[in-house]
């Protein structure tokens, strides 16, 4: 249930932004979920909906739209690009769980499939991002 902590950050950021924009009701919140963090979507959505109750300004029921981003990892050494799904079978359960908690530990547990370098970057699909908020003023 570490998804709960991330959902809490989304709801708090949503409320902060809505207050800045003087929204009276929040009607739609789009959240992008990076593949690398392996979020359990159902648990995450449940947590978002639970945490959204009794907020000010109110968040409309079913306001949260979740979109999954496929990850892209790019080697700084040889330029190779690949995704988490290309290599996830190589991780044991502990390594996979560690990447779920802290996506950057992928640099610890993985290497570029082309040249073996640890010097690659997460160019897409890292973790949870609040993309847009819609509401009524």
């Amino acid at each position, binding site marked *: 249930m*570490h998804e709960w902590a991330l959902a809490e950050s989304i709801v*708090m950021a949503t409320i902060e932004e809505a207050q800045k924009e003087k929204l009276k009701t929040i009607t739609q919140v789009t959240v992008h979920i990076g593949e690398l963090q392996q979020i359990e979507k159902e648990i995450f959505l449940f947590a978002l909906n639970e945490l959204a109750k009794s907020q000010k300004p109110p968040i409309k029921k079913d306001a949260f739209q979740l979109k999954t981003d496929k990850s892209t990892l790019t080697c700084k050494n040889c330029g190779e690009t690949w995704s988490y799904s290309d290599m996830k079978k190589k991780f044991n359960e502990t390594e996979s769980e560690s990447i779920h*908690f*802290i*996506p950057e*530990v992928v640099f*610890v547990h993985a290497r570029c499939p082309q040249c073996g370098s*640890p010097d690659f970057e997460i160019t897409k699909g*890292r*973790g949870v991002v609040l993309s847009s908020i819609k509401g009524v003023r």
Partner: protein
Amino acid sequence: MEPRTSVIQKRLKNINRIIAVASGKGGVGKSLVASSLALHLSQKGYRVGLLDLDLYGPSSHIILGVKKEFPTEEKGIIPPMIHGISFMSIVFFTEEKPSPFRGGDISNIILELLAITQWGSLDFLIIDMPPGIGDETLDVIRYMKTSEFLVVTTPSKVAMGAVGKLLNILIELKKPVLGVIENMTMTESSFIEQTVSRVPVRYLGRIHFDETLEESIGNPDRLSETKAMKDLTVLLQKIDL
């Protein structure tokens, strides 16, 4: 939009004091001072957390003798209790493998750790800082606004050169500095005390080089009985810790 920054203050709101044990230089004994400080406060009956932010070379877990303990998941991650200290470190996720992180990754890891760690109520959170004034120091200043700094140096002019730069930036940013500890002294030179006297920071005193200390690494009960710990306790009394 980055959502994690919004939740960090909530995670830290029930922590009374945050003390970052820092130095401009590596190898001066920060981790030992941080772990010993956490043990000292815990033995005094305080609720204490220890966060190892040395992401390239974490070592507090070695000093405390952490073996199989692991954080538990409950609306985030709850640090395991090690000798009465709530302990969190990147090592739970890196398994002692090399950690080739770049600057942006460091900030992301710190944000993630601060956003998902459920410390609960603490009297003190001690942070074992990496050396220097890079991402970790700047992120602690940015996200942990109430943090106070306890600065460690050795008697070396080389160490003090780097420590002086850390002190200057902390003074410039108006961060509270509890004082400077001179660690691993072998002579009674006054060089560090005189150098510190030129800045508005308190020189707390010396921890003498303790050749038996290494035997106590990994055993907090023995660590608490060392001459180094006794020296530290005297210095901490000067700042009411």
